[in-house]
């Protein structure tokens, strides 16, 4: 079931109403059943996979507490179970495909058949969440959950089941054990988050997707400036799509009194790539930091080890996103840029306070992040290279045409050229939506303005939300059948 579907509106109203009507003791059961229903809207039989991981990790948690001397063995068993399922469904065909390619290179006459399996939706997310439970129990930071239903709910909690945020047991499990009564202010705050999430998804992400898909489907026939614009649009699309999902998830959960972690913090205003990763998909970045980077040694020891640790984390991160060389390259590029940043940063320390330097850093970081997203979005490696060529050449082409062609109409070049269909009113909707998005985010980023906005007259605040509702109603795309991008992971 998609958040942006008609069925979900009904589902949400019924589940939320039942949550507050039912006695506290059986709320977990209702939420668990609702989460199962939510998940089974995709591929019903895959719920068995979830059940299997829940069973393994629940048993491992209990066993680790009961037999502390053997807890390492139980942790390993649990990790093998989780990673095994992940490898089988997500990476098996990738490995076989590569073995076949190597075989073909050496002219071997046989190839291994690929498995006809569909990746269970959100597998990487709930597997990582389940793993964080057993690791935290092993480390002694979390007591093993005795209540099987509550533990199952921790893995299956519907707002964050298919695309995160990847929660930690310390934050989420305890909230399931608390009786949350209805709170009007919290309800409004949750609704506001949901509204903001829908604005990002329906108005911005899905609208931009139309243009991005056009260009990525046939990049050869588009002018470099159009390709450049499509790449920038994809950067914004993926941000609005994913952070929109996270906002909706947090809002849904907040209404029920369960607080989920913030997953994004204005990532495109980052001054360097390390800063970007501290603000983008925070729940995954911190997961890798806590469970991979620090256990590997983090930044302790010599610089070579530090660089090695960063490289490992980013390669795994790329691989986590998808079983293809494009994703691995995407991860590797981020890793490489992070390493370069760490090495180079001390040389620019004096410029850190300079406003112009800060603005240039933000623009350059966005330029590079956008370029790396090309690997993420392209269907294959060769097309990614083609698009990158056009992306890099777009700015020189623009200046060349601007100065050498007297009749050069720049607006026409970015909007109409090569059949690029962003024109007229559509263009105004996109520009105004992006202004609302980034304007609001910027305003909220300054503490002074934030508190001023929070103290604003209720009428002004209500007017803004009324405007937003009408704007979403009449500019959102409701028939695009556009899934959330991160569902595929």
């Amino acid at each position, binding site marked *: 079931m998609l958040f942006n579907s008609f069925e979900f509106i*009904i589902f949400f109203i019924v589940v939320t109403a039942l949550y507050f009507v039912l006695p506290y003791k059986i709320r977990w059961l209702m939420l668990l059943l609702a989460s199962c229903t939510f998940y089974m809207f995709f591929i019903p039989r895959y719920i068995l996979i979830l059940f299997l991981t829940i069973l393994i990790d629940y048993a491992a948690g209990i066993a680790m507490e009961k037999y502390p001397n053997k807890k390492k063995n139980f942790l390993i068993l649990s990790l093998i179970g989780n990673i095994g399922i992940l490898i089988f469904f997500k990476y098996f065909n990738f490995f076989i495909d590569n073995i076949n390619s190597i075989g073909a290179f050496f002219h071997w006459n046989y190839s291994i058949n690929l498995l006809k399996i569909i990746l269970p939706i959100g597998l990487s997310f709930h597997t990582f969440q389940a793993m964080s439970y057993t690791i935290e129990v092993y480390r002694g930071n979390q007591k093993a959950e005795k209540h099987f239903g509550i533990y199952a709910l921790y893995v299956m909690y519907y707002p964050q089941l298919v695309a995160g945020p990847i929660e930690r047991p310390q934050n989420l499990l305890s909230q399931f054990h608390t009786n949350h009564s209805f709170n009007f202010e919290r309800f409004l705050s949750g609704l506001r988050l949901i509204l903001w999430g829908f604005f990002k998804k329906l108005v911005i992400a899905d609208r931009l997707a139309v243009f991005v898909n056009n260009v990525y489907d046939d990049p050869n026939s588009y002018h470099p400036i159009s390709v450049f614009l499509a790449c920038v649009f994809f950067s914004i699309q993926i941000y609005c799509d994913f952070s929109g999902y996270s906002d909706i998830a947090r809002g849904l959960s907040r209404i029920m009194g369960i607080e989920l972690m913030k997953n994004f913090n204005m990532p495109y205003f980052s001054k360097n790539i390390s800063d970007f990763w501290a603000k983008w998909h925070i729940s995954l970045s911190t997961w890798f930091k806590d469970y991979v980077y620090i256990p590997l040694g983090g930044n302790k020891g010599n610089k070579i080890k530090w660089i090695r640790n960063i490289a490992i984390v980013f390669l795994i991160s790329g691989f986590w996103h998808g079983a293809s060389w494009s994703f691995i390259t995407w991860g590797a590029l981020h890793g490489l840029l992070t390493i370069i940043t760490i090495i180079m940063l001390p040389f620019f320390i004096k410029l850190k306070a300079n406003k112009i330097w800060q603005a240039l850093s933000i623009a350059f970081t966005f330029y590079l992040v956008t370029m790396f997203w090309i690997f993420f979005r392209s269907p294959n490696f060769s097309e990614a290279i083609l698009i990158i060529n056009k992306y890099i050449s777009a700015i020189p082409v623009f200046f060349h045409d601007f100065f050498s062609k007297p009749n050069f109409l720049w607006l026409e070049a970015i909007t109409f050229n090569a059949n690029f269909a962003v024109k007229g009113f559509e263009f105004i909707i996109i520009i105004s939506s992006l202004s609302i998005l980034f304007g609001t985010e910027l305003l909220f980023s300054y503490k002074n303005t934030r508190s001023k906005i929070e103290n604003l007259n209720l009428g002004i*605040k*209500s007017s803004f939300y*009324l405007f937003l509702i009408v704007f979403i109603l009449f500019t959102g795309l*409701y028939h695009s059948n556009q899934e959330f991008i991160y569902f595929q992971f």
Partner: protein
Amino acid sequence: MKKAFLFSSLLLIIALVFFDNFWGSWLKRQTSEKQIWVLNKSNQHFNIAFLGSSRVYTGIDIDTIKNKTCKTAINLGCDGASLMENYILLKQFLRAGNKIDSLYLQLDKFALIEMSKAYSYPFHDYLFLNRLNEDEVKEAVIKYKGYLKYYFWSLLPCFKYAEFNNFYNLKTFFPFFNRKPTSLEFDSVTGSRLIALQMPDSLAFKNNNNFHEDSLVINETSLFYANKILILCKENNIKCTLFKVPMYSRYNDRSHSSLMSEQFLVKFSKENNCRFIDFQKMEFSSKRDYFKDYTHLNKNGAGSFSVFLADSLMMK
């Protein structure tokens, strides 16, 4: 806080009711949409009416029919209209006080099979949103979209229009973007849309020699509405004739399902005591110059076919 929320909610409801009424009356004025053009006709008398999908819409030249037969006629065919939509249009057309003596209903393979397989958008629900209370529209929406959607659309103001905001576009409020008047795709007197395109070589010479052994699965909903149209004709003393507009023979003759549909239609017309004229059998259908694609006549073809059709109307 609660007061502010209630006040905002009230304002929102007022805004939604306003937009609901605005779009409802705006829709009535959209005569550039063929369906709305049909729905806006009232208290007129036509000797002959042609009802069907785009094959009727683009394949029948009403002026030719009028000139040859000296009778009044109207083309009620619409792009992508299934039998469900045909029925709603006819029912509402008659309810508006219009009278028809003789109805020619186009029936072919595409009208009989599952609607979603034959047409990309078989029921243009977004054009009937201001008529949800009317029985035939209600029945169709429930059949096509389900109860939940029907009640969601009918009970909540404005949401139904918002869902189709590519049609009910905010642009309407900004005259700057609406300077160019939209040109009508069809003749505003006859309702025909004659297209001067020729069938491209890529289609005409496409290797299509294989006979398709596909089977014909008659869709229950389509049959239900075919019967409803016949009953409606009887109730209004309209003489109904079933007919098939020619399709390009290289395409039509090469599938088992097309042959099956012809046999079915002969049987169906006998069971319902009405005449079935299969114009597909004419030599005419093998002339490439008469078609704009495999399934639609062009202006040239529509003119010639309408002469032939008028002759057969006078012969009966």
